[in-house]
């Protein structure tokens, strides 16, 4: 017998007869709080920087004054073509190793944990937000949801090959529990909250 058949047989034999029903998820996620304020507070708490902006011009100005434009900046947003390159989506992912800043947008954010949902159709390349030294993500204020409950309702049966929640910069506390930002991924995360 193949291992698959053997395992499945044993499981069938050993799993409890009583079939437990799935619980009602609609009871969850009814907490009331100020969504935008919570988002900003939680993001700061985990080492990210919220920056409120009125339009893409403000984003461009912010990046100009905070990052070295001589270095490699990449984006998927045509609105930012003045400061970052757009033609990297089909290159070998390894060649992104010298990227200083990646700027992408998120489908939505989640207030309770400041996470942002991105999928490969808006990532350009899957490795792009991880391999850059710094990461900036643009999200519309109206797209901040209260909890993960609303987040998965919004995702529904959305189609993607890869999707991830990003909450803050890459970090580790593996050396005596002292928090260090920038373990393998981005050392910093700016979230541009767009009106």
């Amino acid at each position, binding site marked *: 017998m*193949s*291992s*698959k058949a*053997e*395992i*499945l047989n*044993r*499981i069938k034999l*050993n*799993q409890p*007869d009583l*079939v*437990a*029903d*799935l*619980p009602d*998820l609609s*009871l*969850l996620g*009814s*907490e009331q709080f100020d969504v935008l304020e919570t988002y900003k507070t939680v993001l700061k708490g*985990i080492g990210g920087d919220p920056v409120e902006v009125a339009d893409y011009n403000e984003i461009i100005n912010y990046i100009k004054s905070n990052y070295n434009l001589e270095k490699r900046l990449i984006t998927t947003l045509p609105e930012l073509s003045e400061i970052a390159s757009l033609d990297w989506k089909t290159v070998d*992912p*390894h060649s992104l*190793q010298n990227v200083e800043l990646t700027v992408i947008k998120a489908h939505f954010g989640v207030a*309770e*944990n400041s*996470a942002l949902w991105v999928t*490969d159709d808006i990532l350009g*390349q*899957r*490795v792009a937000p*991880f*391999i850059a030294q710094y990461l900036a993500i643009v999200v519309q204020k109206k797209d901040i949801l209260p*909890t*993960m409950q609303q987040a998965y309702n919004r*995702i529904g*049966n959305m189609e*993607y*090959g*890869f*999707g*991830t*929640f*990003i*909450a803050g*910069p*890459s*970090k*580790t*506390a*593996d*050396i*005596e*529990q002292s928090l*260090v930002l*920038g*373990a*393998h*991924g981005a050392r910093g995360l700016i979230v541009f909250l767009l009106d």
Partner: protein
Amino acid sequence: MSSEKIIPHSEAATKFNKDVERVNWHDETLWFVRAKRDKSAHQIADWELLRETASKIKNNVLSNIHDYLVEFEANAQRNGIIVHWAADAKEHNEIVHSIMAKHDVKQMVKSKSMLTEECHLNDYLAEKGIEVIDSDLGEYIVQLRKEPPSHIVLPAIHLKKEDVSETFHEHLGTEKGNFNPQYLTESARHSLRNTFLTRKVALTGVNFAVAETGEFVVCTNEGNADMGAHLADVHIACMGFEKLVPKREHLGVFLRLLARSATGQPITTFSSHFKKPRDGQEMHIVIVDNGRSKQLGREDFRNSLKCIRCGACMNTCPVYRRSGGHSYHNAVAGPIGSILAPNLDMSKNADLPFASTLCGSCTNVCPVKIDIHDQLYKWRQVLVKDGYTPTAKTVAMKTMAKVLANPTIFNIAGKSGRFVMKNIPGMVNNKMNKWYDQREMPDVPEESFREWYKKNSRESKSKDNE
């Protein structure tokens, strides 16, 4: 590792306890993490409802796991993922090796996976001439030191920054005596970045797999699983079959609980959902049994399969905090490890269910409401009955059972016990008495509660009382 002689938990713990300062530090560090968990949990109004919901979802999973696995495999295959099934650790290791061999690759970068620890994959691949580099910083540190992780979430929690500094100085050539965590992390970042950029095969664990969609979720703070998987030509993901959840929407419940229970964070930095390989990439899933189906059949212990490996039960356990993860001689240490280990091998792990005070703190923090301390108590009974415990303990337990079952003997035993402790304390406070090893013996009361009760309850005494 598997062939090495196992040092029983109490003996290993005694050794760990010799360095009093370090034990106190270990204890406090883990309690600090536990306190963060509490603070984080208390901020969520729905916390108890979330735990209850998670527990119910897992009940449903356990009672339908056969069908969910079939559904998951079909969907994963439809997504273009290659699915393998491994009955035990050996087969798991062989499958992973065969994928490496097929691509003729001798190097692998791995992100943290307790399952591969359980299967001793690194040792197996090393024998085949394959180099594995663990990329989670904590795992990387213990790997350089040739130690197993001592905690499922915080693999290097037993080490001080001085230890890490020494290790990095030796292996990475960092400055001697530089203990700065920032500096040390930066050095590891440089070294591992080169690893990520040059490996053709990346292996990750799986935190959750979704039957409905055939996708799986990997949670990390460092982004190491993603750096590995998105740069490699081949991504191998290994999972115990109990990692399944029925639907994508259930991930919301578990992602809200996992990181808060583990470290007090609102969510891990990256919660990556892998559904399809990227263009040109090959993606494998290895579904592993290795004793899980047997545990599923043990009614008293099957709940342990609900575990989402958050580590909260370890952080809160007064025994774990003072004995260290290595004393459990099992990939998963602490309270939950002590339930899982005897299922794998009763004779090797019979000591572990006794490494607990049964205080119930583990059960109280468990995000999926596993009755951890009850299961530890039940294991003790099974192990004693089946003769797996050391003779001294078996005799003590059997005597105890007899004494407790018979009121007359209990009475006499109590009286003589009090007499001995009061008049010949040396007979109790000595090396022969295992209980005295770590403890002060109490002052002896003049009379037992029973005697006191007899004297003082005259008026209300009913017929049934004696």
